[in-house]
């Protein structure tokens, strides 16, 4: 399990990185390496060139401007998890980050790397979809933005041209006083989830639900918004029955099937996790009993 031979490049500026990416054939970008390295040691990937982004200036860092958080693509998962603003204002993200792998992998793994790897079960892919993130992309023709919902083109296929790379993620800060819960089921602690559910709720002063966002990870090739359930919840008085009813809609989703996990089981997990995440998100609303 030794990686195959490749030529190594360590650009120090974004321009250098883009220029290498444009000029080299069969090149792979190396971010935190927590997904790429196993692919190399298992020899599933044979790049001729590896472009290491770890020395590129300005790609890591978290800045808050008004209602937006800008997270540099090379920001480590650990640094985002420990960021006080995330802990205090974006609990959904904090909960999801805590479930990514383990301390050692979060210390190296990056936000951009995980999003570009785009594993359908990855917590970041699901949570960034739930939070309505925008992906900032650089390429030879300058920067462009893509909504996270449009970023996955298919199974592990990001909307990136071969000469483009992700530079940052922009997150709209959720409104104060929202409720949030990120839950997942995996066979072992720390493993990739089989299914995850991300829920955010806001409430009118009347007590009715204003808005609900339900995103399921791991059920299909890309994260799935449970739009029917979101519509069912909006404007309603939150009750356990209502959450059960909303979660029931997960039974109708089109779920993946593989050798280990049949589609029916993914649907059942989606239903259970949705119900629990709705309940937990509701309980996390300020003043909830």
């Amino acid at each position, binding site marked *: *399990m030794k*990686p195959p031979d490749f030529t190594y490049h360590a650009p120090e500026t974004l321009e250098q990185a883009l220029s290498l990416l444009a000029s080299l054939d069969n090149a792979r970008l190396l971010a935190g390496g*927590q997904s790429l*390295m196993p692919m190399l040691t298992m020899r599933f990937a044979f790049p001729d060139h590896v472009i290491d982004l*770890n020395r590129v200036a300005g790609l890591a860092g978290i800045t808050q401007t008004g209602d937006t958080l800008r997270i540099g693509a090379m920001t480590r998962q650990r640094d985002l998890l420990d960021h006080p603003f995330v802990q205090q204002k974006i609990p959904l993200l904090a909960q999801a980050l805590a479930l990514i792998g383990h301390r050692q992998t979060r210390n190296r793994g990056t936000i951009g790397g995980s999003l570009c790897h785009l594993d359908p079960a990855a917590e970041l892919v699901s949570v960034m979809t739930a939070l309505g993130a925008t992906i900032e992309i650089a390429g030879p023709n300058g920067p462009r933005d893509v909504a996270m919902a449009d970023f996955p083109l298919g199974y592990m296929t990001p909307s990136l041209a071969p000469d483009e790379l992700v530079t940052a993620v922009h997150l709209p800060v959720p409104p104060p006083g929202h409720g949030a819960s990120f839950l997942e089921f995996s066979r072992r602690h720390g493993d990739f989830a089989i299914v995850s559910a991300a829920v955010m709720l806001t409430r009118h002063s009347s007590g009715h639900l204003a808005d609900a966002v339900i995103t399921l990870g791991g059920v299909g090739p890309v994260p799935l918004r449970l739009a029917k359930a979101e519509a069912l919840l909006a404007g309603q008085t939150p009750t356990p029955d209502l959450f059960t009813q909303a979660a029931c809609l997960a039974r109708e989703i089109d779920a993946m099937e593989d050798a280990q996990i049949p589609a029916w089981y993914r649907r059942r997990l989606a239903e259970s996790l949705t119900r629990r995440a709705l309940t937990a998100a509701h309980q996390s609303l300020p003043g909830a009993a």
Partner: protein
Amino acid sequence: MTQHHSITLHLNGTAHAVSVEPRHTLVDVIREGCGATGTHTGCEHGVCGSCTVLLDGEPIRACLMFAIQADGRQIRTVEGLAHGTILHRLQQAFIDHHALQCGYCTPGFLMLAAGLLEADPNISDDALQDGLSANLCRCTGYVNILRAVRAVAAELRA
């Protein structure tokens, strides 16, 4: 066209000038280039944690990083824990609590525990258990590893 690069790894406070291929993993170069064979490989795909070392003070999996990326960085391994004949308190606790049998996963667990406790000497028991579940052990059933690290955590809190 294999490239060779000259890099310097600062291992347990000593600078090691080594020549590496870019594809050489950090754990391989720590072991073969620097001769510090206390760090073990258990899976080489980032799951078992046997190769855990501290990179600039934080635990990482040394099989999931190329050595060339660690050029100029500070690395601590199990060989750097003891001060001469005086064992690190985690090492002593592992002996006292029978937290090792075959000892293969032990260096990785020691470095993981050291990283967790150094980052947060007041670490909660839940966080400790969560942190220690990152590594695999096949002999002990983890019971005594947890006991040993808890004992050190309690000493630090006291």
